[in-house]
């Protein structure tokens, strides 16, 4: 009888659909929370940065057109703006990956709980 008992215990609440739903819900909750908490700050910072960089491009053109800066200086300044923009994109990429990573780990943790509950002890 013990093997049968264990088999039933494992089967209780343990199906592909069930575990998928638990993992999906955990990932969804994590994504929603992170998008709500982390994304607005990054979005605001990005928007402000893009506006500043765009304004800098206009200022560079004005200074260059008026002869206040040389062509070489204008090129240096434009390269600086490009570097700032690329740095901003890398930060967005990093924060995006952190959000996805949190969602995946939340799903895995939720699945761990289901498995441990199904076997009746802390297996993983």
């Amino acid at each position, binding site marked *: 009888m013990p093997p049968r008992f264990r*088999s039933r215990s*494992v*089967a209780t609440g*343990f*199906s*592909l659909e069930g*575990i998928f739903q638990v993992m999906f819900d955990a990932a969804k909750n994590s994504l929603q929370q992170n998008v709500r908490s*982390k994304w607005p*700050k*990054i979005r605001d*910072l990005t928007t402000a*940065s893009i506006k*500043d*960089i765009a304004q*800098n491009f206009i*200022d*560079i053109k004005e*200074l260059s057109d008026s*002869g*206040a*800066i*040389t062509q*070489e*200086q204008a090129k*240096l*300044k434009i*390269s*600086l*703006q490009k*570097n*700032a923009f*690329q*740095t*901003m994109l*890398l*930060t967005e*990429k*990093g*924060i995006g*990956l*952190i959000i*996805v*990573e949190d969602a*995946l*780990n939340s799903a*895995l943790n939720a*699945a*761990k709980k289901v*498995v441990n509950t*199904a076997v009746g002890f802390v*297996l*993983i």
Partner: protein
Amino acid sequence: MKKLLFFFIVGVISCSEVRLVGAYDEKVDDGIQSIAKQVSAIFVDIDKKIDQQKDWSYPNYVEQYSKIETEIKTLRIRTNGLSKYEIVKGQLTLLDSSMHLLQRDHQSGFVAPGVTDVAVLKKSIAIDESAIAKSLTMMLELQEGLKRKPVSSAKK
């Protein structure tokens, strides 16, 4: 079939947690903050010297620029030893490039030869300062995002 599924899922789940980006490293964060401070100090000093009509030319800042370059190089070496740090490494490469561009602009005097208008000079410097400040702010923002991970797991 259920047992097979069970062992498969247990196998997958029991693997260590998913890691897409390297963990927070306090020394990298401190290093970026230190660079931000030193860059700000250069711009504040240049601004003051322009107002006081003192010498703000490049040779007066060689040592400060050199210190910043050294710090960036040290951070690049440190991040080479950290796993999944490609994004931060990319940002440090861009910062290194920006510091070289700034130095070249400073060496050239920030404005065309013969331009003496202080407002124009300050505007030209402000454009550079704005770009580098943006870069550093975004780098520190990423460090903030990385902070939710334990420091001990940052190393390979």
